[in-house]
């Protein structure tokens, strides 16, 4: 497969975001199909931390995507901003807290909790593992599925962007159950759900700390987008486990990826890449030491940091 990934530097105010998104889509060679009646836009609203933290998609970017879609298909197209409940996050709170209720009112679009949609059981095989998902029917039937992830590091998978945001579409809230085999699960759900296009919100990216990266990326293939995102985040894509598995499963092809627009290096140098203290090993070591200390001393470990 493999495909084009575009990078656009967005240094302007929120008024110009539509232009940057249009430019990114054009550079990525994305062609809008002629007959689109329903559009689903999936931001990353993983928790209640706002866009300035780098954790969640900025409503400004989703607003820009809506404007681009409206420009192409007119006012009558049905647009829904969607998110599913997560282990610790409830969409009914994330929408107002993160500014999506306000955005929906301003743009005249609907908000939908994917966990409350009709959920279809889908089972896929990734390597030797069979994985089942509750998949929102809407995402399989919509005319245009726009994936709007964040660019950020994550302890478990090292990076998270386009493919991980598709994982967030799973309707079953306790997605924590997949964390033991998260890399396989990310690849699995991406076999079932294929966004038509991905627009990455890299205005604020999250490395060891949040940073204003002022980047909009776009691409039709989530695997290719993640490959480039990984390079920006200073992480060799061939060492990212879910990208390795996706390559093996022929979900993506690293050979055919090329970029257009701004230079990857321009963003890479500004990104606070992960180091040992932001890795799962340091995190694990801290808990191991704490547990050992608790056992030896008989001291109390606060429940908030207990394994459950």
């Amino acid at each position, binding site marked *: 497969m493999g495909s084009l990934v575009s990078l656009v530097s967005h240094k302007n105010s929120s008024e110009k975001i539509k232009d940057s998104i249009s430019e990114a889509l054009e550079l990525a060679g994305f062609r809008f199909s002629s007959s689109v009646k329903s559009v689903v836009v999936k931001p990353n609203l993983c928790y209640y931390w706002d866009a300035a933290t780098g954790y969640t998609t900025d409503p400004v970017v989703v607003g820009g995507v809506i404007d681009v879609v409206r420009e192409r298909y007119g006012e009558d197209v049905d647009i829904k901003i969607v998110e599913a409940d997560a282990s*610790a996050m409830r969409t009914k709170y994330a929408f107002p807290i993160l*500014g999506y209720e306000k955005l929906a009112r301003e743009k005249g679009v609907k908000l939908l909790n994917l966990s409350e949609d009709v959920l279809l059981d889908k089972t896929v095989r990734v390597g030797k593992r069979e994985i089942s998902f509750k998949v929102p029917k809407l995402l399989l039937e919509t005319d245009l599925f726009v994936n709007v992830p964040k660019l950020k590091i994550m302890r478990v998978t090292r990076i998270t962007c386009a493919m991980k945001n598709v994982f967030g579409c799973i309707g079953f809230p306790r997605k924590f159950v997949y964390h033991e085999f998260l890399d396989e699960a990310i690849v699995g759900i991406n076999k079932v759900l294929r966004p038509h296009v991905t627009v990455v919100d890299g205005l604020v990216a999250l490395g060891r700390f949040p940073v204003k990266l002022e980047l909009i990326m776009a691409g039709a293939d989530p695997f290719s987008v993640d490959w480039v995102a990984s390079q920006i985040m200073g992480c060799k894509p061939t060492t990212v486990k879910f990208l390795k598995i996706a390559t093996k499963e022929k979900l993506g092809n690293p050979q055919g990826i090329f970029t257009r627009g701004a230079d990857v290096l321009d963003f890479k140098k500004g990104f606070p890449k992960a180091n040992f203290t932001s890795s799962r090993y340091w995190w694990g070591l801290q808990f191991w030491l704490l547990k050992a200390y608790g056992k030896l*001393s008989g001291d109390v470990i606060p*429940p908030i940091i207990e394994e459950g």
Partner: protein
Amino acid sequence: MRIKVAIVGLGRMGMLHMMNCLKMDGVEVVAASDQSKKALRKAKSAGVSKVYADYHELLNHSSEIDAVVISLPNFLHLDSARLALEAGLNVFMEKPMANTVEECNKIVDLVKSSGRKFTPGHSMRFMDAVEKMKKLEDKGVIGNVEVATIEEVINGPFAHPRVPTPVSDWWFDPAKSGGGALLDIGYHLIDLFRYFAGDASVVFSHLNYKLSLPVEDGAIVLLRSDSSTRGIINVGWYQQTIFPKLNFRMILHGSTGYLSSDDFVPHNLYLHALKVGSRNLARRIVGKKIRYLAYTYYYESYYKELAHFFQCIKNDSEPLVSAVDGLETIKIIHEAYEKYRSSL
């Protein structure tokens, strides 16, 4: 004397209180209640012999209990306090003492008529930094306190536990929570102001709703005490803070100098944990009692407030924090709510 304790509510705070009680000399945790089966299993495995899914049932079987530690959602504080006090139990009540002035008044009356020990969980008075500042202020080292700025901006109910769990709905229902950041965190800060400056009234109040929730996520309140000390309270729920960080500070501006809590808290939390942890291990080796939770620096206050309460039961002395303190704090909070509403 061995105090038999029941833990009512095993959420994050209740579970911590239970674990603390289990470590205390002369304290035995004999019962616990919670709606969560998982929490009850945990209590059982920790050695608590009787567990109940309903706190009413626990309080109806209280003949072998001396004291209860109540950590229920805010809207259940009055009901549980009434049942416990009427059953003749000593009560430690997690803050806020109750949601409204009316509810707090009822608790004050119940405490008086029961003759039992009662204390609301004003844990910040037991923080090491606050205790040190109180001692110095009492000695008069900064003269008269003219202005106190007290602030805490953290994540409130959005603290992300290691095992991802959704925030309970009652937090965002004003009828159940009683309020937002001002009631939850501001409660501590207003209590600290009263602790240092005495009774106070509200001069100005501004509430913030950045998170578009039905309850406030931030507040700035200007207080004036009867002794003319002014207090600036700045509280928020909107900041992403991760354990063990605590964005709290109190500065007392006196006529001859100032005291800042920043000078009394560890600057490097990892080094502090290492130092205190090593000291505790050494104490354990030589058979001495350790300082529980001191490695976290501020969680130790939860242990200390409970230990103090049980000591008061043993000695038949009055707790540092009374039901009237809880009532007066809630009065100020509701005055701040009212002042803000009338300014709109």
